């Protein structure tokens, strides 16, 4: 097996073995604690330009199956894991994880101590990293010279509108980076979905006569999103039922004058209990969160808290006091993740269908 190295911006070097593509790669490194769903994680647009560390010791045993894609190509720039399963007996798979990464020129590195790496990353927080053939000064110079883009939404959003037809409610999805799971859920309600680029204008949205609007899950920093979008959300929430997910939740909060800040330790996993405030019920969902709304700024806004993460205390859901508009920080589309957290879609479609008299 070919030796390769994972190097971090702070000078750390981890030696491991190559899998996937033999390319050199750069990105922001983060760790994901989910036990399942590696394909969904690798293809989730929220991880665009990132290098994922899986804390679960082995992945790949289920192969790759296109029904589990969250985008047509992998979004991560690199994959780090203790061990890649060499054998998969999943009858649904079309290729192995190694073949998948090779096909899309994404390198991976295995057989390194991902526990030590994860503990280190918990201390340092997000930083730049690279998977290289040799960890010399040149490699570190290249890594330190790397400038991470703040144009993540612009890069992942669709350049033009497209339709995902259905016979039910007319839903407009504004694409700030859109994982397939959201469209899959809307398909379950037979919604007639139009996906618009992130920079859609008010007229472009309203000319479609939407029954409901979804702000999609994103990648990137909400404060890097153009200010016009907040104005658009402020207008739309008065007109049409609105659901925000992930980045869409953060933008919904900002549009209503609630502040959003980077989290001290990012959270990527599906093991935090989330409490629905109104019923006191606990649920688990996939979370991919680098930012959080600032609690103290909710009180003077028109929003109120609907969901709270019981492990780190972060706000997981907000709702507008005066309009049919709400948002969740977690991913309610179950791709991957427990299927108990899909309620926001039910609530949203109820809201939509009651208003359209269906």
């Amino acid at each position, binding site marked *: 097996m070919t030796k390769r190295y994972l190097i971090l911006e702070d000078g750390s070097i981890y030696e491991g073995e190559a899998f996937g593509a033999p390319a050199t790669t750069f990105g922001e490194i983060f760790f994901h604690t989910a036990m399942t769903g590696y394909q969904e994680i690798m293809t989730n647009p929220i991880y665009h330009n990132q290098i994922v560390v899986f804390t679960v010791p082995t992945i790949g045993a289920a192969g790759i199956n296109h029904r589990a894609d969250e985008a047509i190509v992998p979004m991560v720039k690199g994959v780090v894991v203790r061990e890649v399963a060499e054998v998969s007996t999943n009858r649904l798979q079309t290729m192995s994880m190694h073949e998948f990464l090779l096909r899309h020129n994404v390198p991976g590195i295995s057989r390194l101590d991902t526990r030590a790496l994860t503990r280190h990353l918990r201390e340092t927080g997000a930083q730049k990293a690279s998977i290289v053939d040799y960890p010399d000064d040149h490699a570190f110079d290249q890594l330190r010279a790397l400038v991470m883009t703040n144009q993540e939404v612009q890069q992942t959003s669709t350049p033009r509108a497209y339709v995902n037809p259905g016979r039910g409610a007319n839903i407009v999805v504004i694409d700030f980076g859109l994982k397939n799971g959201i469209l899959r859920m809307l398909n379950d309600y037979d919604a007639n979905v139009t996906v618009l680029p992130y920079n859609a204008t008010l007229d472009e949205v309203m000319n479609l006569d939407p029954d409901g609007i979804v702000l999609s899950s994103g990648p990137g920093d909400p404060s890097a999103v153009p200010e016009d979008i907040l104005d658009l959300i402020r207008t739309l929430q008065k007109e049409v039922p609105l659901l925000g997910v992930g980045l869409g939740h953060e933008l919904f909060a900002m549009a209503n004058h609630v502040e959003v800040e980077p989290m001290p330790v990012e959270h990527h996993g599906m093991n935090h209990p989330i409490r629905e405030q109104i019923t006191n019920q606990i649920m688990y969902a996939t979370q991919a969160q680098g930012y959080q709304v600032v609690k103290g700024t909710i009180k003077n806004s028109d929003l*109120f808290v609907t969901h709270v993460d019981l492990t780190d205390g972060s706000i997981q859901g907000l709702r507008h006091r005066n309009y049919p508009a709400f948002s969740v920080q977690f991913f309610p589309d179950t791709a991957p993740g427990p299927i108990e957290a899909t309620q926001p879609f039910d609530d949203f479609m109820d809201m939509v269908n009651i208003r359209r008299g269906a």
Partner: protein
Amino acid sequence: MAKEIVDAMAMQRALTRITYEIIEKNKGINNLVIVGIKTRGVYIGQHIADRLQQLESAEIPVGQLDISSYRDDHSDAPVKQDLDVNIDGKRVILVDDVLYTGRTIRAALDALMDNGRPAVVNLAVLVDRGHRELPIRADFVGKNIPTSASERIQVNVEEVDGYDSVEIE
């Protein structure tokens, strides 16, 4: 044979949605009073009040209304029911389990008005089954269930019946 058409989970979700709609329509919970129509309307009203309290950390008064003597198939003059909550100038949410002919709600409005002058009265029902005989409609509906007049709708609440469900027979 009774057939369950709304299970406990769906019933709880419907009450959650009604609660959010009440906040949206009233722009908050200031001045809000819930009045449940005996028997099951009281428990449903209490569930809504509990949810409002969870969200807003403020207790919402819940009154109980017995409307039997106000019914229009009752020939004697109605006996005034004393509500245990003040409704003068309040935003009242009147709660019942099933909205059918509208006659119960008409009686409830009379019983309510004998107790004061609310600023607004809204009606929340878990089930609207149609067949109105009076010009009355609900502001908040958990479930619209189209029925024929010969069918029977039964709402069960845990406090009285031991379980939550809506059944049709």
